[in-house]
């Protein structure tokens, strides 16, 4: 399959799975290209521009399009660290989120409730 044909397949999949969910809250994305090595490049548009949850959305796109034979990854103009990507991947696939010292809360804000005096 040529990269142009692959681009069409990716766009159809994104249009059917991801875009309606994004557009429901005013966001949007465009699938710009697919490289020869199968990397999809997307651009965030509308309310997605500058949204702090773009990395989560990117992971959702990644999980969706990686099911297409020939697709190896997803890129957009911003990146997250590998630490964050591993956590997002685990989150998106329902797996166990890798623990990191950075995730440890500095104070025990969550714990057993104090017994209520009847």
């Amino acid at each position: 399959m040529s990269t142009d044909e692959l681009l069409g397949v990716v766009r159809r999949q994104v249009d059917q799975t991801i875009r309606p969910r994004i557009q429901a809250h005013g966001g949007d994305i465009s699938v710009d290209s697919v490289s020869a090595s199968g990397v999809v490049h997307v651009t965030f548009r509308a309310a997605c521009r500058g949204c702090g949850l773009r990395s989560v959305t990117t992971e959702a796109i990644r999980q969706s399009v990686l099911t297409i034979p020939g697709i190896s990854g997803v890129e957009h103009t911003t990146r997250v660290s590998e630490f964050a990507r591993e956590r997002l991947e685990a989150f998106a696939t329902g797996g166990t989120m890798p623990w990191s010292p950075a995730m440890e809360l500095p104070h025990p804000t969550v714990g057993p409730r104090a017994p209520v005096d009847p």
Partner: protein
Amino acid sequence: MHNGMFVFDNVVHMYDNTVENVIDPVAMNFQEKFHHTYSRPGMEAENYVGTHTEVQEALVYLFEKSDTDMVMAQTVPLFSYWKQGFAPAWLQYKLKEACPERVLFCAGVDPLFQGLEGCLDELERQVVEWGAVSAKFYQAHARGRSWRADDPQVAYPIWERCLELGIDTVQFHKGIPLGHEFLEDLAPNDVQQAAADFPQMNFILHHFGLPHVDATINIAARYENVHLSLSAILNLWPVSPWTVYEILGKALLNVGEDRILYGSEAFAWPAVQAYIGALGSMQMPEELQDRYGYPEITETARAKILGLNFAKLMKVDVEAKLRELSTVKAGG
């Protein structure tokens, strides 16, 4: 070239702090204190009270003692503290004339001090006679005098004239008050509507609006014609490296590596090579990658920030420029 990367410095200032030019020394004195606060051996700030930058000295700093390939000499049209501004247009033009193959000239005008018509006329003169390819604006002045980039009466005629003159990149000093300007007048918020109304114009915000850093990054993340210059931010590195990592990391995460520019802020900090070296080898600490998800600084990102992004904005063909420079000695 630095380790194979094209180095295009977004901002140097040929300053003039001579007694003939200084009206009110408060800004000059504050700036000198700020510059010296963020200095250390090898990255010293210049003792520049009462002096001005010499063209030959500037050429040596840039093209003999550093890996810089090209620079933009930016006018500082701040007329409430200096008669001709901290960095007068004519002095920036002199640097460009001394080395036109490596130096681009950035105009500087102000509608408050020159009046709108005077500002437009002078802008046109600096473009037509002196070959300006961009323009720099300082919107906040002493005693609360200021103007906004989204003012249809004051600012939009300037952006329209810029486009007519072929200038599609304008630049703004944001944050970092030099003297008694009001901090709120240095916030980046006014660029939002201007960026929306002039999508064909590129807006470069300097200093990440310090201390309005989060707002500046947020605006750049949402407007694709807004770009961020590391000017003055990179210069914090010798004293506060983690401040730089945090700001750069946040920008890489939210804006991306395509709209971040290297700016040395020479010649207040003249040791240009030290800053190129710092950016050229800077790594995002793993702790910040883990805690905040800030991406690592890849070689691709580094090359874009050090020069390719600004070259794209200035429509400089890097390969052709490198061929040209290989046959020309800096400064004639």
